[in-house]
């Protein structure tokens, strides 16, 4: 069906080589182009938020009512936690233990998302001029979001925890069993390499292990929704619901260790 003569083969090869060269140049062009698009992206994300508020007015109203009820419950829990925190601090000072470091955080707004479906990243409106560097962890008040993978002067890209290229060392909060949490490009995460006789249960909370310096210890990663055994029968795995709703991120915090 397709006929190629010698001339067209040479022309096609040359075009292909040229395309390879341009493709290799893309990472260099990325930051200047994103900086040009920053302002329209901010405007578009503001419009998206406003339009979303109008379109989903009723569901927002219901959600607000539910949240108001939850706030009272959480307020009581927070009060109990404060008591425990104060008691813990007193006991720690009695034992002369070194306290955990308080992290410095910087807040940033999400202005864009990866158009490709094979990775899961967001673009935020803060960059190296705000002190953001590659490798820093990103969170919300609910838990871990991901890691900074690219920075320009005024924008940064964060790879989300549901990206298949990102792995996080984590532990089961209740039993302290370790595993590796990986993304699956969907709405769930996969915790691999759990011991075969693991005591993990559905609705267990998974937190970061703090084994690497990238993610601080104890950040919520997700909740177990299913457990299974690896095909090799050597270990178990768990499917997690992320602690953070990754599809509805509007603001994130970047942690400075």
């Amino acid at each position, binding site marked *: 069906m397709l006929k190629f003569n010698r001339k067209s083969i040479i022309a096609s090869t040359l075009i292909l080589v040229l395309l390879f060269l341009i493709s290799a140049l893309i990472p260099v062009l990325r930051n200047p182009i*994103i900086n040009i698009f920053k302002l329209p992206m901010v405007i578009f994300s503001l419009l998206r938020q406003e339009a979303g508020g109008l379109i989903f007015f009723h569901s927002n109203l219901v959600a607000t009512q539910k949240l108001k009820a939850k706030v009272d419950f959480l307020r009581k829990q927070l009060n109990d936690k404060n008591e425990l925190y104060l008691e813990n601090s007193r006991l720690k000072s009695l034992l002369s233990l070194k306290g955990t470091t308080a992290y410095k955080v910087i807040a940033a707004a999400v202005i864009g998302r990866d158009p490709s479906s094979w990775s899961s990243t967001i673009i935020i409106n803060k960059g190296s001029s705000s002190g953001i560097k590659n490798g820093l962890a990103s969170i919300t008040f609910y838990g871990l979001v991901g890691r900074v993978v690219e920075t320009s002067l005024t924008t940064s890209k964060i790879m989300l925890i549901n990206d298949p290229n990102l792995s996080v060392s984590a532990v089961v909060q209740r039993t302290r069993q370790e595993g590796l949490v990986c993304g699956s490009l969907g709405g769930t995460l996969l915790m691999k390499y759990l011991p075969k006789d693991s005591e993990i249960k559905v609705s267990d909370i998974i937190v970061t292990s703090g084994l690497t310096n990238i993610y601080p210890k104890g950040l919520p990663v997700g909740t177990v929704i299913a457990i299974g055994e690896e095909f090799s029968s050597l270990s178990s795995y768990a499917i997690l619901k992320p602690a953070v709703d990754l599809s509805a991120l509007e603001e994130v915090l970047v942690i400075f260790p």
Partner: protein
Amino acid sequence: MTRKNNLILLILFFALLEVTVLHNFRVFQAKPDLFLICVIVASLYFEVEYALGISLLCGGLKDVFGIGSFGLNTLLFPVISFLIMKISRKLVLNDTPVLCAAVFIVSFFYYILSRIALIYLGTAISFWAFLRISFLESLYTAAIFPLTLKLIKRTIHL
């Protein structure tokens, strides 16, 4: 010339939609690929040089907003555009249902090529995730193709 400039402006507008608003219109984590639609339209209705230029622009924009050390779409889109131009000379693609079916096939073919390239570049994506994303996105892209084509035709007076 205005027609061609209008298409470029429309592609820039689509790029902004892809990275912001379209995220709200995802169905089962899938969203339509407006860049691919622009590549298909340019390949079907414009001359070779301009269509290749458009596919280069679309691929470049898609890679700029993504991550990765190599501009995969910058390479794939012109190749797909070239193949569409070659095939469209042999086949009649006039009716909307036929065009939608062609968009679905082209889109699925593009995802297969992407997966092969991603495996080669070291990104492991499970087979089921690939199948789900490829099928749903191809379907979604084909479904919104008539509407997008109408918009493009109106903007550039095709």
